[in-house]
């Protein structure tokens, strides 16, 4: 995977994870253009498209679009499953997740993503294990906070 973007139906970016080196300017341009392209697509169209020289896989969940750019050899159908797994993780963590959760707790959304994917590939295929790791890390955070002066 080269990058993953989450954005609302109004085109507001809620999460951007980049696995390839690009400057801030380049990232902005890609986000803007790609978001526009996807928002222009009709609901009856399929979840895959070729954009520039990338394969794009996207799916809409409620008011959020989850959009990934994958490599030529990557399996588009399993990428849909990756997206779905991430949504499930968010859902379990936040308890029936909605867009607001991701807005206010964007850093948590990143932490969860970083326990699921690393360098663009899945590092853990068990839902339970990802959630357990996040839980433990959260605990670590609280513990340290309490012991600070």
């Amino acid at each position: 995977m080269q990058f993953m973007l989450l954005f609302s139906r109004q085109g507001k970016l809620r999460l951007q994870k980049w696995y390839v080196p690009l400057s801030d300017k380049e990232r902005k341009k890609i986000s803007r253009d790609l978001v526009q392209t996807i928002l222009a697509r009709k609901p009856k169209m399929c979840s895959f498209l070729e954009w520039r020289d990338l394969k794009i896989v996207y799916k809409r969940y409620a008011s959020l679009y989850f959009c990934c750019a994958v490599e030529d050899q990557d399996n588009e159908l399993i990428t849909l499953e990756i997206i779905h797994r991430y949504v499930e993780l968010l859902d379990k963590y936040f308890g029936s997740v909605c867009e607001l959760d991701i807005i206010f707790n964007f850093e948590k959304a990143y932490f969860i993503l970083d326990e699921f994917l690393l360098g663009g590939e899945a590092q853990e295929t068990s839902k339970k294990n990802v959630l357990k790791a996040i839980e433990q890390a959260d605990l670590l955070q609280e513990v340290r906070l309490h012991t600070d002066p």
Partner: protein
Amino acid sequence: PVPSLHQGHLELIRTIRTARTQAEEREMIQKECAAIRSSFREEDNTYRCRNVAKLLYMHMLGYPAHFGQLECLKLIASQKFTDKRIGYLGAMLLLDERQDVHLLMTNCIKNDLNHSTQYVQGLALCTLGCMGSSEMCRDLAGEVEKLLKTSNSYLRKKAALCAVHVIRKVPELMEMFLPATKNLLSEKNHGVLHTSVVLLTEMCERSPDMLLHFRKLVPQLVRILKNLIMSGYSPEHDVSGISDPFLQVRILRLLRILGRSDDDSSEAMNDILAQVATNTETSKNVGNAILYETVLTIMDIKSESGLRVLAINILGRFLLNNDKNIRYVALTSLLKTVQTDHNAVQRHRSTIVDCLKDLDVSIKRRAMELSFALVNGNNIRGMMKELLYFLDSCDPEFKADCASGVFLAAEKYAPSKRWHIDTIMRVLTTAGSYVRDDSVPNLIQLITNSVEMHAYTVQRLYKALLDDISQQPLVQVSSWCIGEYGDLLVSGQCEEEEPIQVTEDEVLDVLEGLLVSNLSTPVTRGYSLTAIMKLSTRFSSVNRIKKVVSIYGSSIDVELQQRAVEYNALFKKYDHMRPALLERMPIMEKTASNGPTEIVQTNGETEPSVPDTKHPPLVTQPANQVTARSHDISVFTIDGSFFVTDDVFKNGLKIEFTFERANPNPNIAVITIHATNTTEDDMTEFVFQAAVPKTFQLQLLSPSSNIVPALNHGSVTQVIRVLNPQKQQLRMRVKLTYTHKGSPVQDLAEVNNFPPQSWQ
């Protein structure tokens, strides 16, 4: 409410979201950024973390946050886990490896890779594996390699993916990870297994040696895959009844790479592939994802034909799936295999054709490409019906490609000439404005060569013009035909269908109508005027034609004006030549020997590529110039010079080519032309132009003069430098223009057999 520095970022987000306009938001953000900046300057440790978090939120909204970069580094260096978490996140969002500042992270990451808490190690591994630059990877590869050997599966799986990143950044480091891969696949932990397979895949893809080395893992991979399929329900890894589909897909992909071009490995995986292909549940996307990967593997390795047919049939079933995503991947895969497994794909032709009616643009495009790939002599009639129907109703973005595809298919497989002409007509009338420019000369050649269909063709084209003159390619082809075969039109000779009754005046009305219409482009007008002119030798209404031609002698359009003036001259001074010049075009031969080269450069300047003119010019040139000739010139060599026989260039003009090798570049040949004139009159305004195929580069230096004196009293010399890096046979197209005895002369010829010494 004013956002407070001492509150968490939640408050800030809440506040910012209350902004009603972009301007209001910007103001809030600016205020907040100013406050954060001063807090950073005060080196306030307590609030750094939440301030960076706020900054990251604002950055996501699109505001600049570069002043927070160093703060992220300070957070990473902190001992608080909260700080590190936000610090690493900030680094991944705000830093990019092309800035030097990111290198400052290296030491921190190194320390954190050795931290006592695995979650801190995890953060470091994640960051390194996500954005580590080549230098960082070089520095830290050793640490990653160490962690790849740990028994802690939480770290091991991350180390494996981190190693993948390191290898991508610094391929030479791949070797050092080899020992650690030894027992990776013996792990029970699925996370480690998955990431290990990814690592192995990366190594095998990059290095043929690694590939050979890891081939022995095939039996083990097959076993793991088998266990996944056969094992009972495992709640931890289950997705809709399938056990760890992510791992299955990755294993299938690694098997593909290992089995490619190796018979033994392919055989070893044959059974499991068949098993997966037949037993995987297809009701949900996840099952189809596995089937898809399986099909890709089957098609890529050396599988037996039964397995390949099975794979294609799976794709065939995919085409019938309600899920458009499934149809999409099926069409994509079929496109890849249609050449190698043509017959198997043919069996699904009707389903593929149905996909032409799909609503999704990408699916339609693939269906169209596949359909063209499947057209053959047996199915041409049926397929063409579908494709023409598609052409009628498809989006404009498809029409050009579809039209070209139809023309090509028709050319290859047309069951009859009549069918061929009808098909072309159909395309021109329904998608005429989208047809590519180069189709016009191709179609004209086709029509010319279908001698027995001339009457039918011109009649149909004439009728089409009566209906619609807006589609330029149609109008151009029609004009040309009417100019050529107008006599057949008015004499009502059509056999194929009821001949129409039309008079010469009516035909001229139509052609003149094209000249004045706003819809006609300049090119079309040119065709139309020339057609009218040609009819002067086919029709009896010569006076009318003379009138038209003389009117356009003062046209604003320079091209049109020139033609009209020259046609006028044809009537006045060269009337005796007119019938010969305007007679029926002969059958044009497709010169296959000219090859695919395109002539690109003339006179040392680059011109845009001119389409390969295999066909002679289609519009007759003005009367007192002669059209191009192209044939081999006899060349004989003497002592490093070579001569071009002078019966090629007319009027007593002789061109001699001499050559020498340029030092120090052996790829450059220096050719000098010497032009001499045996006639009694000077040749003035002499211009020599040359063009060479694309793989060469040519430079023409200035000529010595542009008068070739009469009676060999001097010569014009000019130096040509030819760069020939690919050491190919040199060919040159030569064009001469000059004035002789008061008249302009143009001569074109090809020099095809330059002696080897001139270009080797």
